[in-house]
């Protein structure tokens, strides 16, 4: 997998590159600023861009802006954004451009190498990887009353769906059978008024439903 990575802290940049290469990823270019990152993405056409949110010059949201810009230039480019802290406006800004091939993770998740590589592969494959922290915050701030109908367990399942996990992965994480996960998901669809006749991917629709709520907030 060809990766362009942008992180302004040289030590961390080196550490990340080291880890990715140890996982036999092809880090084709590293960058210290958003501008360098965009140039590298244009030059190398990577499978995934891994971007830090806070980079020079203002150390605020350069990475988010760069992610949106990179996806505008190359629609469908997979981008995984790493952030020092969860900021909903960042998440919503990022997700308004569509959730496919997008990831937004707290930086420290990288240390859980297996899960991180999972997320990276998912994003590269056109899936989603949203940090549990982000999902939790989205939940608490969502104003969609239908979400309040969900039981805590169904909430957990929806959260993991939003992180981009498949049923098997969710079952593994929650230590239940896949059948139980199926049951929860059907119940979620029912409570969110997503009928089987709708010609939409109900899974994505369910995730979008509360992301919508947050978007309205933002």
């Amino acid at each position: 997998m060809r990766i362009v990575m942008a992180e302004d802290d040289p030590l961390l940049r080196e550490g990340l590159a080291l880890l990715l290469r140890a996982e036999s990823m092809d880090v084709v270019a590293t960058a210290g600023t958003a501008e360098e990152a965009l140039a590298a993405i244009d030059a190398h056409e990577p499978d995934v861009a891994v971007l830090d949110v806070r980079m020079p010059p203002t150390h605020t949201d350069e990475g988010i802006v760069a992610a949106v810009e990179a996806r505008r230039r190359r629609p469908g480019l997979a981008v995984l954004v790493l952030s020092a802290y969860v900021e909903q406006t960042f998440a919503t800004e990022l997700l308004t451009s569509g959730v496919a091939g997008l990831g937004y993770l707290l930086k420290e998740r990288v240390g859980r190498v297996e899960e991180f590589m999972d997320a990276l592969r998912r994003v590269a494959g056109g899936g989603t990887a949203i940090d549990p922290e982000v999902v939790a915050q989205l939940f608490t701030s969502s104003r969609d009353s239908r979400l309040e109908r969900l039981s805590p367990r169904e909430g957990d399942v929806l959260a993991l769906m939003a992180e981009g996990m498949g049923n098997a992965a969710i079952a593994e994480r929650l230590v239940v059978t896949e059948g139980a996960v199926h049951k929860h998901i059907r119940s979620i669809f029912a409570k969110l008024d997503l009928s089987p006749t709708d010609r939409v991917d109900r899974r994505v629709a369910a995730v979008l439903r509360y992301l919508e709520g947050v978007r309205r907030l933002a």
Partner: protein
Amino acid sequence: MTSGQTTGDAERDSGLRQTAARTAGSAAAALAQLVGGLGTAFLALPVLLCVAFTAAASLVGAGLLLAPATLRALHALAARERARLARWGPEPAAPDDPPTRLRPALADPTTRRELRWLVRHATSGLLLGLCGLVLPVAAVRDISFPLWWRLVPADATSTSLGVGTAESWPDALAVVLLGLGWAAVVLGLTPGMARLQANPGRRLLTAGPEADLSLRVAELAATRAAALDAHATELRRIERSLHDGAQNRLVTVTVLLGAARRMASGDPAGADELLERAQSAAEQALAELRSVARGILPPVLADRGLAGALAGLAADCAVPCRIDVDVPERCAASVEATAYFAVAEGLTNVAKHSGAHQAVVTVRSSGGRLRLRVEDDGRGGAEAALHGGASGAGGGSGLTGIRRRIAAHDGDFSLSSPLGGPTTLEVELPCGS
């Protein structure tokens, strides 16, 4: 006993010397002030005549055309006097720009006050200034009279009073006595005369009572805004150094640990190297946390006071640094912290940019103000860095932060650093909270 007496005499001697030096010093300052006042008084006289002429001419209409020019001259002179007074004491708070058109000027309190000042300064101010010029000349002339009175024609040997003529040695000695009298007058009365001369200006050239309050309110509001701004900047700096500094180090630790764990079974040597790097990253995180905490309030200030804390800074400075602190009492904690960071920033710049061989830090307090000065013998040019680098991460940005911090305390900051050096950083802070 004898030695004790000698010590007592010596003390009395040095006390006398100090009193004499103080008296002479204040007399010299007063004379300089009087002569300086004479300068504006000489200008005040023609302006006063102009005003009188304009007023008289206005009665027949022609003066109306002259009014704007006359008023402009008046305001310019008043501004000059304000600047002069600011050099000799607290700066008179300048009122807003007064009008230069006749009709609004007639109703303008500032203009009226300036006119009242003009009359006093052009008359009594002028006389006092002349005294300041003539008195020391007379004193010198009369005291040195015996040295030269034989050399000049007899009709030029009159006393400085112009009464009587010295024709014999006793006469000459009497003239010396007269000269000593002049000297006594100079020493004793000139400070009072200087105050008398400056008084109308200090009273009438400041903004009037009604304007005064609004000015002060505006000033306080600005200071408060600066304080809040400095506070917000400070919080942002702390937040940034936590997120981009310590936290990034810790993330690096977890990344390296994660990689090391994956490597542990296959490549133990490689894993060990990663662990080594993870450890050093963790140590860096600790160092960054220490520096962030220290940046909020240096613990050494609380432990050892300003003098001890500054001595610590000097000891850490790469350039040999002499610390001279004479501050009898403690100031507010935030003021001491600001003073400490100003010196720290000053010394950092000395070590990084100046190429100096030595630096001197002087701290004094008087009249409720804390004054610090950081000097070096380096190559200068720091002013350019301050103005040019304000937005970047260059040498100037630290000073910009310090300057904001000082402004928040209602203090003053000045930096003199011509190319070729030396560089002098001066900071003045009110001691109170």
